[in-house]
């Protein structure tokens, strides 16, 4: 069984790739409905089957065996190329995260492919009398190949390659309707914005490669850890960047590396300054929006951050948290005023991606990825629902013209509502049957992110905020625990944990401020000395490890409180706008009878909706969360930052748990804060939009709201700002360049050309015409005369040439013989 799982994952890349080429080469011959089925079976059916095998096997594999399999996959990488001392290896990353992501991508993509067959067949897609139907599925197959490749890449290099490939697919599919006037600019916007992010990504990769010496994820993480422990490489007191000669002190460069890598995620996951492309990307066909721009590709940014989590520094992590927080809040606000159903969902996606990034930023590694997966299910479903609506209403996307569609498309209506409940965090807080709680999707994943954020913002004091003394005492400005002290009280602590559990211990820990001071005074040598002791105390290894994480946590600043409150605010906004979208589309009275009369739904498209609705229900529970939790053990074991498990009371050694003291338990706090946010959001939304848009338009007219509405409707003027800064800026620079060109360079050129002209006139009339021409003409005339003579024997008769040459040769030989006879006798 050992290599089989990794090979199955690798094999899942083959058929999408082949399908891509088959469709590219013979697409038009395969024909309109069949190309879709080819795309479905080859592009996603086979990978889904393989993925399901892997997923089920992995699900029933014990953690020890999983670790062995991961190591085996890591070791069976293939050497692809050797560039100096740099080995380019390719293989398969086989761990719980990959397996979960792979299965999620395959499952969702399969149903979206399925949906596409129905969706695209209804489209007039002929350009210049050629159908583009097969092209759509070719692109989808290429996307499937790239996305699966991205998920299984064991090294940042291949991750980057597939990263760019998915970007290409995104570009191609956004611009699928290239005959329109809105799709090509949207595609270009997406592509260029992503390039901005990728620029940072490449800088990050460059730093990883230069200082950590490898692009392999495991290797880089190991090198990071070693360099941190020995204060070399990236963590030397003075780091000089080769070629550029810039020097950085302490951890600046490591932070830059983290931020650089995150820049890639910012582009792909459309985070705050680079978020502008995602709403425009809705120009693509709706299944594409569901697959690429909601469920999978945009989540790749989060996946990247999860993968490089071990390379982050506290500052970089804080940067991520800030960006995520800004995105999640401000994009959610924009969604309130959107009237286009797809745009509304797009901003909702932005906001949810913000949640995931924010989750990564606060250390809720598991929760962020869990949210990624639950979000993928329900957002794919929501988008497909909107696709069904758009298709059913003959390409009307404006919610103002919809309403009352529930009678015409009941399946879409109720599956959409399941999605709305899931994204709104529907659940009954505080009620549970054993471990089984009652809720949907976001109720678990978002709640966990918020819980960790709360813990970071309010309970973090238990680890002690870093003081000034820290920065000076620690070799690189990061704090280390005084392990000796820990060992000294190790006995008591284990006794404590045996007696009162972890919560008590942590509470005691956080109250003991004198202990903190002692911790913070410790330096690197103490750590090293403790390292050798660690083996001696092997029996309490796990406990020891956890305390090490406590030490790391004490070096990380608490989260600013406003960030937590922003996230809470969004928890109220999200139900509001999602309910609004659902109500305006499906409920109330039809506002446009023409649209309403023609509305219909089709089996081909409702099947995926139902399947994904079931998937949303199931994915909320037992499938993914434990697997991600397991993945976190290795993938979130960062030396400088900590991941917090928001659920388990006794998480894996690499993770911290929440503060479960009764009066500080984040989950209990959240019940009061946002437990019923979805109800309030729904209620407010229902109150306003119950009878269509009249109330809303009246609110819009009231002075403070009208300005706000305009601000939101213009998306905070970001497009205008970018237009002003970059487009106009470029034009201004170009204008200056043109001015310089006209008045400086041209002047010089004109001067030079004038002089040249004079010289040319002189040399032409005098030197050339008389001197050179005379000479050349003389030669040519001579040649001409000579030719007149020489052409006489050139009769063109081949036989004459033969006779002449042989005759002359014979004569020469004969003469030679005669001469030799005469001379030699």
């Amino acid at each position, binding site marked *: 069984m050992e290599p089989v799982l990794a090979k199955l994952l690798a094999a899942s890349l083959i058929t999408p790739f082949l399908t891509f080429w088959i469709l590219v080469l013979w697409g038009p011959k395969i024909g309109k409905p069949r190309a879709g089925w080819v795309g479905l079976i080859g592009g996603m059916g086979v990978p889904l089957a393989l993925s399901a095998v892997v997923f089920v096997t992995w699900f029933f594999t014990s953690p020890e065996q999983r670790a062995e399999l991961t190591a085996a996959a890591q070791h069976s990488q293939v050497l692809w190329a050797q560039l100096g001392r740099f080995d380019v290896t390719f293989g398969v990353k086989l761990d719980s995260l990959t397996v979960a992501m792979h299965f999620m991508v395959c499952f969702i993509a399969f149903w979206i492919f399925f949906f596409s067959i129905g969706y695209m067949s209804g489209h007039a897609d002929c350009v210049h009398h050629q159908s583009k139907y097969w092209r759509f599925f070719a692109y989808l197959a290429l996307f499937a190949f790239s996305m699966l490749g991205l998920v299984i890449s064991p090294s940042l290099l291949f991750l980057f390659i597939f990263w760019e490939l998915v970007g290409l697919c995104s570009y191609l599919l956004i611009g699928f309707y290239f005959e329109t006037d809105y799709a090509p600019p949207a595609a270009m916007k997406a592509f260029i914005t992503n390039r901005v992010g990728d620029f940072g990504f490449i800088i990050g990769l460059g730093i990883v490669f230069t200082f950590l010496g490898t692009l392999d994820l495991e290797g880089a993480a190991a090198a990071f850890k070693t360099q941190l422990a020995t204060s070399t490489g990236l963590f030397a007191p003075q780091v000089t960047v080769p070629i550029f000669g810039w020097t950085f002190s302490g951890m600046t460069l490591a932070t830059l590396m983290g931020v650089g890598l995150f820049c890639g995620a910012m582009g792909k996951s459309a985070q705050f300054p680079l978020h502008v492309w995602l709403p425009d990307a809705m120009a693509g066909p709706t299944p594409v929006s569901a697959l690429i721009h909601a469920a999978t590709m945009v989540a790749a940014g989060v996946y990247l951050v999860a993968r490089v989590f071990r390379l982050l520094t506290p500052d970089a992590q804080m940067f991520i948290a800030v960006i995520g927080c800004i995105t999640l809040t401000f994009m959610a606000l924009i969604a309130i005023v959107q009237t286009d159903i797809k745009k509304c969902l797009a901003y909702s996606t932005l906001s949810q991606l913000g949640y995931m990034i924010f989750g990564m930023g606060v250390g809720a590694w598991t929760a962020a990825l869990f949210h990624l997966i639950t979000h993928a299910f329900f957002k794919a479903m929501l988008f497909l629902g909107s696709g069904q609506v758009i298709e059913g209403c003959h390409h009307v996307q404006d919610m103002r013209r919809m309403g009352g569609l529930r009678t015409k498309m009941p399946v879409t209506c109720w599956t959409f509502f399941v999605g709305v409940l899931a994204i709104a965090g529907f659940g009954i807080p505080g009620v549970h049957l054993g471990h089984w709680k009652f809720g949907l999707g976001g109720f678990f994943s978002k709640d966990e992110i918020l819980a960790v954020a709360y813990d970071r913002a309010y309970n973090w004091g238990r680890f002690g905020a870093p003081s000034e003394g820290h920065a000076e005492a620690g070799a690189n400005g990061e704090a280390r625990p005084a392990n000796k002290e820990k060992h000294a009280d190790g006995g008591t602590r284990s006794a404590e944990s045996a007696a009162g559990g972890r919560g008590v211990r942590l509470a005691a820990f956080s109250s003991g401020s004198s202990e903190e001071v002692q911790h913070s005074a410790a330096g690197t040598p103490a750590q090293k000395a403790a390292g050798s002791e660690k083996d001696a105390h092997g029996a309490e290894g796990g406990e020891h490890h956890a305390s090490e994480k406590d030490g790391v946590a004490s070096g990380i600043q608490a989260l600013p409180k406003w960030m937590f409150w922003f996230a809470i605010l969004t928890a109220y906004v999200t139900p509001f706008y999602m309910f609004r979208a659902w109500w305006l589309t499906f409920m109330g009275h039809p506002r446009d009878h023409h649209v309403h009369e023609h509305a219909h739904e089709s089996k081909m498209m409702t099947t995926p909706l139902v399947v994904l609705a079931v998937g949303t229900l199931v994915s909320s529970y037992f499938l993914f969360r434990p697997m991600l939790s397991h993945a976190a053990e290795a993938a979130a074991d960062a030396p400088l930052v900590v991941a917090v498990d928001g659920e388990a009371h006794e998480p894996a050694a690499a993770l911290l748990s929440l503060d479960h003291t009764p009066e500080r338990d984040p989950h209990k706090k959240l019940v009061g804060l946002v437990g019923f946010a979805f109800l309030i959001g729904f209620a407010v939304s229902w109150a306003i939009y119950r009878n269509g848009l009249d109330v809303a338009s009246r609110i819009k007219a009231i002075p403070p709201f009208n300005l706000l509405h305009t601000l939101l409707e213009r998306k905070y003027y970001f497009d205008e700002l970018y237009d002003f800064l970059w487009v106009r800026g470029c034009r201004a620079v170009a204008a200056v360049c043109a001015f310089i060109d006209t008045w400086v360079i041209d002047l010089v050129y004109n001067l030079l050309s004038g002089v040249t002209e004079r010289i040319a006139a002189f040399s032409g009339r005098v030197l050339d015409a008389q001197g050179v021409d005379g000479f050349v003409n003389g030669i040519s005339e001579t040649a001409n005369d000579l030719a007149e003579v020489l052409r006489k024997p050139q*009769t*063109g008769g*081949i*036989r004459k040439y*033969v*006779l002449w040459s*042989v005759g002359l040769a014979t004569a020469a030989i004969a003469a030679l013989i005669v001469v030799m006879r005469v001379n030699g006798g």
Partner: protein
Amino acid sequence: MLTIGLTHYLIVSAVLFCAGVFTMATKRNAIGILIGVELVLNSANVNLVAFDRYRAGLMDGQIAALFVIVLAAAEAALAVAICMNFYKNLVTVDVDQGDVLRG
């Protein structure tokens, strides 16, 4: 006379050569001229192989002969193609008709 030596072969070669040259010089048919060329090339080959056999013995002559054969084959292919073109343009294979340098 019973011991066949180098000279025997060289004489044969000389006769072949002269016959080839005569063919080239007297035949007006382009293919005929080509046949003459083949004879000349063969006479050269006989020379090469004979010298190799009796004097050098290092098979260099044989390899040279091989190259000659290759070149002759190439030449024949090209020459026949040229003949075709000639025929296509002038509707004859009489080389005496083709004495103008015009495309």
